[in-house]
């Protein structure tokens, strides 16, 4: 996995983000030139015309319509140039996505995690089922149509290196294109203030070669493996998951838990939980130790999170962690 870019908005990794970087440099250049001119003249005039104790008033100059029209025209010229560049760039990075047709990927913002569904992926029963959280996998080298929605409030989908940003609005499916040139991990974050844990609504886009992506997708389409026999902790953990009512909010295909909300689930789909690198919207890396900490008291790790504190005892924590860690 590649290290995250330091200046992601200026280090694009996609033909959909690169033109924005170019445009940023052009605008920055023009802007700095204008700024240098205004500031330069200001300081030059101050230095040149600083009061030096001479008596009397300086020449009283009231203005000059011709000069005004000249610099208005110059400003207008610069702006027309920028407008044309803007238009061209918009057409390149954001070709109008048709509102019909199945998107490759549906991303839904929740307070506070990102759910990614793959409507074109099917399980052996022929149903689109692949759903992941906080980590979005995409194949490289292909332009994907992505639909962004929200299950609650307005969020904003932002992966600086791969695409434009787009608001996720309840009741409205916004569409945008996304593409990654080469395999790697690209950081994303919710950019619209969405409540208590807006800061921890981060995610990663993991771009894989098409073969790796297909393999990942096929594995994700499987149901959760049943707990291996003779491993009491894991078996007890599976039982605990059902008894504690985790399935009220979380889907876990294979043990009959289906989160109840209409649009996606309330909590992330956990069917392949252990295959993810981060949990809790990016607060923690997915390690058994962190998972135990999270399950012990989610509110302590991420205050305000929708997952309540179930006050599990140490044995229960061990069992649940052991079970969830098997969900590859």
């Amino acid at each position, binding site marked *: 996995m590649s290290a995250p870019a330091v200046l992601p908005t200026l280090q694009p990794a996609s033909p959909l983000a690169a033109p924005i970087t170019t445009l*940023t440099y052009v605008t920055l250049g023009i802007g700095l030139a204008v700024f240098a001119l205004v500031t330069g003249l200001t300081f030059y005039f101050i230095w040149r015309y600083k009061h030096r104790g001479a008596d009397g008033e300086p020449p009283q100059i*009231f*203005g000059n*319509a011709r000069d005004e029209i000249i*610099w208005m025209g110059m400003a207008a010229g610069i702006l027309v140039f920028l407008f044309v560049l803007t238009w061209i760039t918009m057409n390149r990075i954001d070709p109008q996505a048709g509102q019909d047709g199945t998107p490759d990927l549906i991303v839904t913002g929740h307070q506070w995690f990102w759910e990614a569904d793959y409507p074109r992926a099917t399980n052996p029963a022929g149903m689109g089922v692949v759903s992941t959280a906080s980590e979005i996998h995409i194949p490289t080298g292909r332009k994907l149509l992505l639909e962004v929605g929200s299950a609650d409030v307005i969020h904003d989908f*932002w992966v600086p290196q791969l695409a434009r940003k787009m608001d996720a609005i*309840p009741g409205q499916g916004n569409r945008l294109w996304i593409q990654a040139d080469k395999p790697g991990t690209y950081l994303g974050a919710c950019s*619209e203030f969405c409540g208590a844990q807006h800061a921890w609504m981060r995610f990663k886009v993991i771009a894989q070669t098409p073969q790796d992506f297909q393999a990942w997708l096929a594995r994700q389409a499987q149901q959760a493996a049943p707990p291996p026999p003779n491993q009491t902790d894991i078996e007890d953990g599976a039982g605990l998951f059902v008894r504690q009512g985790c399935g009220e909010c979380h889907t876990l295909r294979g043990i009959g838990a289906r989160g109840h909300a209409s649009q996606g689930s309330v909590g992330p789909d956990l069917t392949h939980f252990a295959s993810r690198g981060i949990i809790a919207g990016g607060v923690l890396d997915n390690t058994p130790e962190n998972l135990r900490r999270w399950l012990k008291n989610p509110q302590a790790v991420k205050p305000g999170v929708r997952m309540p504190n179930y006050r599990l005892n140490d044995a229960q924590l061990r069992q649940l962690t052991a079970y969830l860690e098997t969900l590859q």
Partner: protein
Amino acid sequence: MTTAPVPVETASAPLSRPRNLTRWLSTTDHKDIGMMYLALGALFFLIGGVEVLIMRLQLARPGNTLLEATTYNEFFTLHGTTMIFLAVMPMLLGFSNYLLPLQIGAKDMAFPRLNAFGFWLTAFGGIVLYLSLLEGPPDAGWFAYAPLSERPFSSSLGTDFWAAALLMMGMGTTLTALNIIITTARYRAVGMGLWKMPLFSWMVFVNSFIIAFALPSLSAALIMLEVDRALGGRFFQGGGSPVLWQHYFWLFGHPEVYIMVLPAWGIISEVIPVFSRKPIFGYEFVAGSTVAIAVLSFAVYAHHMFAVGFARPVNLAFAASTMLIAIPTGIKVTNWVATLWKGSIRMTVPMMYAIAFIVQFTFGGITGVSFAVLPIDWQLTDSYYVVAHFHYVLMGGTLFALLSGLHFYFPKMTGRMLSEGFGKPAFWMITLGFNGVFLVQHALGMMGMPRRVYTYPDLPGWGALNMFSTVSAFVLGLGLVLTLINIVISWRIGRVAGDNPWQAWTLEWATTSPPPKGNFVRLPPIKSSRPLWDLAHPEDPDHQRPTRHDQQGKGHIRLEEKDHEQ
């Protein structure tokens, strides 16, 4: 437009000013009300400043735990609301109230008691906003985007207090704006045509129209939000449109930006000519561009919504209008700079703030254009780049103009000069501190830091830049405290100012410092936009200057310019 005659002699005793609390509470004199607005603004600026220093402490390093997430969100909601509605707007209304009647040679505002009512509505709005602390402060941001601001997601009464406070303050501001419009239209001194009004009055006059047209949109939205929250309505939730709130809000919210900067520009347009010893370059263009800005300010509002998924033509139209508004704004900047040309520049503290204003406001304006270049907005909106941009405009621009105006008009208001010995170090602390806080935030935005986050992961460079920003914020704060000390000390023992300590040329300097009730004992004849110049230079009055530009394109110049050329 007709001008009502104003008596030039007043019989009332000078300095019949309120001396005790009861009189402050009952005063209707525009100067008292102006100073009360300024005091109210300063008080809330202090509160908003303390809030933001605590926020900056929380952000000083990654993963900090000084503030809880919800507390931080309450802090930035209060900070934004306080600074916009209770600090900057009252301070600007304070200057407007104080100066407008003086600049146009009127005795008072058209409706003095309505004027007082407007102030008290604003003050009570502030009290209502902070009473929310008893019930849980608002936490949905000053922009209160639905559905986050709706009952299911913001269940405390904080947002209801917030809406009630904004309704009250909005009413107060609207009434004041109507008062200003009528005062300007009807109570200008004999001889003062619209095109002879000082630029500050010009901009405040035009600004009042923006207020009168923009604030109803906010009031309507607030009432709809309350219908949703309190009565289970469905304007913005449950089948209603969350985006509709943004339309209403920004149809107010963008003009609001100009509501805040126009009076600030007015102050700059007064200060720069006085300390350059020249008339403003292109008076008609500086004044006229204000009207263009007023109209366009409504036509650009949706540029706050480039990421909500509009169709291409809508996005392009608002990109174009946003670029267009850069032209009248640019006219103002170029004319301020051109006013320095061939001047006799005196770098007093008010002038230093005005120069810093030009530099910083230009910078903020240019980053504003970068948002009109729409794909850049698709990358950087709602990131720290935006935080940097609008603080450059509203703080680097507006606040610096206010500080310039404060140092400029303090002698008029109090009869005493502010100390330059305190003023200059304070200026440098404020300027260096301000740029230290916000310059690096452009970079943070480009590094992918979203705004309104209470904490952030430990990514390369993030901690260091945020720490730099936080340290600078305290330098800025210290400079402001020094300014406050300067005000308190100078008010008591400052050098006595006299009527016209800066040798300025507009009417407010033609009366005593502070002015008496009724403002003027005798008005000078008003034949140009610089009546005091005409008075001081009977051999070369403005109204006898040629009305057409000379053939060489060198502008209107006085005949003896050649004698002064170096």
